[in-house]
């Protein structure tokens, strides 16, 4: 496995982690993912 492969794998893990964290946050508070930001009526409800 080359250094470049390692870097790419780290980027992938970070991207997946970001997606999961976002999903968890969605269920608890904040962003529902619709892109409306902090005042989204969906997250606010």
């Amino acid at each position, binding site marked *: 496995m080359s250094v*470049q*492969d390692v870097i790419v794998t780290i980027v*992938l893990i970070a991207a997946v982690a970001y997606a999961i964290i*976002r999903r968890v946050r969605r269920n608890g508070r904040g962003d*529902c*993912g*619709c*892109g*409306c930001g902090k005042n989204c009526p969906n997250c606010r*409800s």
Partner: protein
Amino acid sequence: MKLSDLSTGRSAVIVSVAGAGAFRKRIIEMGFVRGKTVTAIRNAPLNDPIEYKIMDYFVSLRREEAHLVEVADADSDEAKKLSRPAFSIADGGAFATQEHPEPKIVKVALVGNPNCGKTTLYNYLCGTNEHTGNYSGVTIGAATNSFTYGNYIFEFVDLPGTYSISAYSPEETFVRNKLLTYDPDVVLNVVDSTNLARNLYLTTQLIDMGERMVMALNMYDDFEKSGDQLDFDQLGKMIGIAMAPTVGSKGTGTKALLDKIIQVYEGEDIFVRRVHINYGELEMLIVNMINLIDKNCHASPILLSRFVAIKVIENDLDFVRENVKCADVDALINELVAMRDHAKEMSSIADLETYVTDLRYSFIDGALNETYKPAKRSSKQTLSQRLDNIFTHRVWGIPIFFLVIWIMFECTFKIGQYPMDWIDMFVSWFSDLVSSSLPDGPVRDLLVDGIISGCGGVLVFLPNILILFLFISFMEDTGYMARAAFIMDKMMHKMGLHGKSFIPLIMGFGCNVPAIMATRTIEDRNNRMLTMLIIPLMSCSARLPVYILFCGAFFPENAGNVLFSIYILGIVLAIIMCRLFKRTLFNTQDLPFVMELPQYRMPTLRTTLLNMWSKAKQYLQKMGGIIMVASIIVWFLGYYPKSEEIEKNYAYAIENIERQTFASAEEHDAAVDSVEIAYRSAAQEYSLIGRMGRVIEPVIRPLGFDWKMGVSLVAGVAAKEIVVSTLAVLYHSDDEDASLMSNIYNEKRNGERFFTKANVLSFMTFTLIYFPCLATLTAIKNEAGHWNDFHMSKRRRRKVHSPWRWSLFVVGYTTVLAWVVSWLVYNILK
């Protein structure tokens, strides 16, 4: 005579309102009370609904609803005999003074009628950019924000507009409950100064609640222009409310407003006090009820016993049950109801609710008689009326509406094409730069083929999205959207849709999520559910990039028309599904629909620019977030694992080409290109995503799709923009200057173009209909509640507990429908 019989241009005086329940309550609260003059303005196209003018504002009523209002000719003896109860106010005492600890946090709730400018004022005060529009029902839920002013921290909560705080619609209940739970220090009652009489009705209810209030006389510039005069200081002293004139769109008067709020918060304004509206014959009953309530229980500290008594008189018993803290609340309610019924029998009052409403309007009339002088109205039509003569014309109204929508799509494509090309050039240049700066390898491929290609593929459509939103925002802010609902109402009604469904459906063209939330304004839960189920068929702006991409590549001459047809297809399918669901799933009632028609207004440049900025920011944030993540994942899945055999064959083929002699450099390049394409295709098919794609390919092949299109549709489940970013990654070519459009156009299989008009239209159709994004499904889950909450037909009713069921139902029906319609499109056009 019935109001529906009143001919256009004539006026009459209201005698009584028949009917029952929410509709009756709503229109009497909107001013259709005994003695008020109403004028018939015009019929909508298809002869229904009818526009009426009452108390200086315009309202749309369907013919069958207008039939419930009994009127008398303005000059008749009957009209002259219609008396209104006398007006009087009693002092309810000063508010209790409080010592506020440091830091001083002032909790302010914005309450007012729909479309009186609450959110515009809130945006100006808080520096936010909440969605606004010149029609009722734009604000959904409560927005909160805080800021510091002087030594005070202001905590503002912006509530949805409401005509009253009875419990007849979800937003009314929401506002009332929020006022009780949030317990604001000061209620900021925003009123439309150009329509005081109607707006003050809500104020009378807030007075009954015993709220400490400041009134923002909003749109005061329009009021001054009309030539009317108001002694607002005197009015404030009379009804115990501090007053401040404001212009929310320009921020005029906002400092003075904040100073007034501070004065009231600190108890420094001596005129701000509790007043009691005199309920005439019912006053003795109210006093007896208060005694009984005080003896039996403690109303919560923020709830006045007098207000509880009035709620019992208005038959709002659920409110009492929910909010009065008492050992045996049901026994108390029974006793209060018995007292009320006895008092009614002993009095000459025919209907208690109407009597209370009449007295509130008498209170308003009395207060305004002493402080408000209307200017003489000119017989000339206002600009708004002249515009309405065109836009709501009986013959031309509907064609003009379709023309406006067509122009919107034509401009979205045609004007958007220029900035789109510039961004495309920038993305190509950036891609070249990165490609030439980095050594060969997975990192460079990730950046160029994954991130830049995926995000760049979506970024290029930003101008189109902004132009679409500019049009929608212009229609909303000018007041045309309410006219669109007016002229389309009869058609919607015939198709089985509730009149109030129109606004959420139109909002769905922007984003389905707030549209689902906007169904809260629909009182009947079955009608609400029905609207929610068809909203995903309204093509949201996230799907626009897919259409622009394919229209640009395959229908450059007729892009606007194709775009328009796709949206119309969504609407037609929504109507068909609505009728189907109505017959099979829901027993919906035909509910009345009352809608205010606001004056036309010219949107301010500031609001328009802020809206555009907000949309651009959201789009870019989404691009830097979920779209980038999806691009990385799709690229990774399409890059790994590597097949040694394919790599070897590729190296061998290139070596072979280099050994050969070609007549020209072009021939050499063509040979290399064909090897590159074959290698890329083989590597992708060997990769993880290729294998996944192969699994779903049999299902989508009948629609004319290949596995790459299938994978992009699956990826688009998270957010629809990802469909394009995935296509950009999967159809990326080695030519860094080639745009996604040209890559797709030139995609070849066995030497022939893969994409045809048939499979392109089939793909656009599938994207329009299938699987709403995850955010929409979450919104449906939150709003729909439980399956068995709704009155379904007995055959279909079953006990299902998961709140996700409705979301899953939407997933199922949209995906099946998408497959069937796309199959038809493909096979007919093939």
